[in-house]
């Protein structure tokens, strides 16, 4: 009798233990995330508030940390005479979420400048990863979980353990620039500007070679819908360290090809925003003060040229044709 029960008993015990483990892990993670008041990703609250409170016409910068670190919104505001909201925070939020996040707050005559990292157009980064899950917990906006493919969520939850593992370093012993307080009133990250460069390796994982066609189409539709509502949408390539660019040039060329094939006009070329490695602060996307200044000038120039010719933007009619 006992033998016949044993598999069931063992099974029940293991399931019970796994439930306890899952609850403990999620609880611990949740506790640490929501108690991290100065958490870098908690800056999403500030950015959303800024977006809501800035009257149109305005310029909204959408992208990952490359624009948080690399653009000077004050100079941009002065150049265009428009209030600028820098929504750049983390590429891990996924371009889909970033676009949907700003959609309700942009109105006629607004200018949306989209500068995502290259990873958003390949593989499945478009749907977000750990950063998005963290933002979901911080904002308690559980509906945003829907952006992440269901099968990816368990792996993402496992990877998020770095928050628990590095809790001491980042919260108790904190002198990190990755803080909610590191941003200025326009949403630019400025805490790193006075700091010396941190040595970084360019041996990051290579970009996946497969273009995410859904991401390209989503972007196209976003531009087209905006055009119908009198909103100008401009796409830019992100800034990038030269050594990393050389390693990823083939994939970046493929991305440029996908834009061209899908009728998306990107201002200037990828090479225009490639800078020497010593202009980067701590990763191949994060410019230092000197790099930021140079990149801001070049971006303003590119935007000025593009705003003189708005006929390049697609419309919803052409979007329908593309979707066919």
């Amino acid at each position, binding site marked *: 009798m006992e033998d016949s029960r*044993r*598999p069931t008993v*063992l099974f029940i*015990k*293991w399931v019970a*233990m796994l439930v*306890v*483990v899952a609850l*403990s*892990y999620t609880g*611990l993670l949740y506790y640490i995330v929501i108690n991290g008041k100065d958490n870098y990703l908690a800056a999403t609250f500030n950015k959303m508030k800024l977006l809501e409170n800035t009257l149109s016409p305005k310029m909204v910068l959408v992208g990952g940390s490359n624009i948080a670190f690399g653009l000077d919104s004050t100079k941009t505001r002065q150049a265009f005479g428009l209030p600028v909201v820098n929504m750049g925070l983390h590429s891990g939020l996924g371009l889909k979420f970033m676009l949907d996040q700003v959609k309700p707050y942009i109105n006629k005559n607004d200018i949306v400048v989209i500068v995502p990292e290259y990873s958003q157009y390949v593989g499945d980064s478009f749907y977000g990863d750990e950063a998005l899950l963290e933002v979901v917990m911080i904002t308690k906006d559980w509906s945003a979980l829907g952006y992440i493919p269901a*099968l990816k969520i*368990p*792996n993402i*939850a*496992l*990877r998020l*353990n770095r928050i*628990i*593992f*590095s809790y*001491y*370093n980042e919260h108790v012993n904190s002198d990190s620039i990755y803080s909610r307080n590191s941003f200025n009133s326009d949403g630019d990250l400025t805490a790193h500007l006075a700091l010396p460069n941190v*040595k970084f*390796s360019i*041996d990051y994982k290579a970009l996946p*070679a497969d273009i995410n066609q859904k991401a390209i189409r989503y972007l196209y539709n976003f531009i087209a819908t905006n055009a119908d509502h009198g909103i100008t949408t401009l796409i830019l390539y992100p800034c990038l360290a030269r050594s990393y660019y050389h390693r990823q040039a*083939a994939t970046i060329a493929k991305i440029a090809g996908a834009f061209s094939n899908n009728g998306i006009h990107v201002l200037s070329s990828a090479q225009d925003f490639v800078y020497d490695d010593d202009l980067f602060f701590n990763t191949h996307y994060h410019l230092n003060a000197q790099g930021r200044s140079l990149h801001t000038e070049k971006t303003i120039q590119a935007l000025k040229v593009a705003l003189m010719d708005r006929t390049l933007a697609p419309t919803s009619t052409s979007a329908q044709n593309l979707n066919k």
Partner: protein
Amino acid sequence: MSFNSAQYFIFLPVVFLVFYFTADRYRWVVLLVASYGFYASFNAPYLLAVLLMVTGISYTCGLRIAAKQDETIRKRWLWIGSFACLTILALFKYLPFFESQANRTFGLSSTLSSTIISIGVSYFTFQAISYLVDIYLEIEESECHFGHFALYLAFFPKLSQGPIERAGDLLPQLKQPYRFDYDAMRSGMLLFTWGLFKKVVVADRLALYADQVYNNVHNYTGLSLIIGTYAYALQIYFDFAGYTDMARGTGRMFGINLTENFNSPYSATSVADFWRRWHISFSRWILDYIFKPLQMAWRNWGQAGPAAALIVTFLVCGIWHGATWGFVIWGLLHGIYLASSTSYRPYQKRLHKWLGVEKSPWLKWWQMFVTFNLVSFAWVFFRSKSLGDAWYVISSWFHGVKGLRSDLILSQGRQNILLLLACITLFVLAAIRPQVAERFNSLFNGTSRWLFYYLFVMLILICGLFGKAEFIYGRF
């Protein structure tokens, strides 16, 4: 689907439940479908086609060898089967090499090889060849049941990285009716968890240092390079041993005992001893199917015969890892270590006697230290991106400490260093003092075992690095 992914943590219990509730006569079908599903999860449909091709070839040739009496015909079928399997393996392994040669010669710009993966191909091909040879030598009988044979090659716990199982060991187990065994199930789960700990907590955290150094060797000198090299030596062990534990743990849950692949290799007292403890199923394979035939063929060469056979065997072993000079030199170095040991061993014993250290406990420690360093030296060629990098590492070992403190040791955080030191100390203590290992094991067998299961799983969840790295030997 890697063993350290959330998908596998879901896949495994689902397969087990289906297996458990299926009648004995159909259980092989469950395992075969699960194995093919597991292989298909690597998103490379051609891999499944290759597996089916190797299965079909070796099954057919095996039956032919067994059915014929004529030695010439038997030998012909053995050669046909082995050659076909080896050709498939060579095409996969050396496609990048062939492609680069073709690109250079014909001015092409093909990038086909960068999109091709060869996970598991070596392992099931080696199994297929050993099966054919064993039938030819009449060590084993051919398997008539195609399903059982297909499962022998494809059984998912050992599909991607081995162990390389002999037909005589695995096939009878696959045919046995399954009976639930509480202890086997529990020990299987523990072994799997232990392997996961080795991989995600120890190996992948060591990889942070090894990769940092070996991806940019010119940023470091001296002690930093030594630390990077030792970190890699430990990383590759924990990575592969972790995988093997997970594979064996999974097998045990299904009532299958897979071969133990590692036996504390870094406590080996000679390089020969190291190969008796490292990747055991592969070492046996190359010993039986490469070294022994060569030794037989060159038996008239005197002492030079075994030495030459060892060098050639390990050269082949190096080339098997890939068509780069680094792997060739790695294999050659091990061949030279082993070949030279056949000559100096008698003198070594005399020297120990003369020094009066033959019974000293320190001798063993000294031999372990020397062996570990010889093996680590060879890993430099295995891990370096190029021969130039390997030469830089070796020539800069004793020059300063550039990049040591701020760039290397502190770059991954103090908690990383502390965790690794604690883990390595625990492993070293367990290796040298069996009581420590027993004490540790007793935690998982006593009355509070569920508490320790919980704590151990939580430790892995908090300290593990998930989704960072694939298993190193997956690409071989």
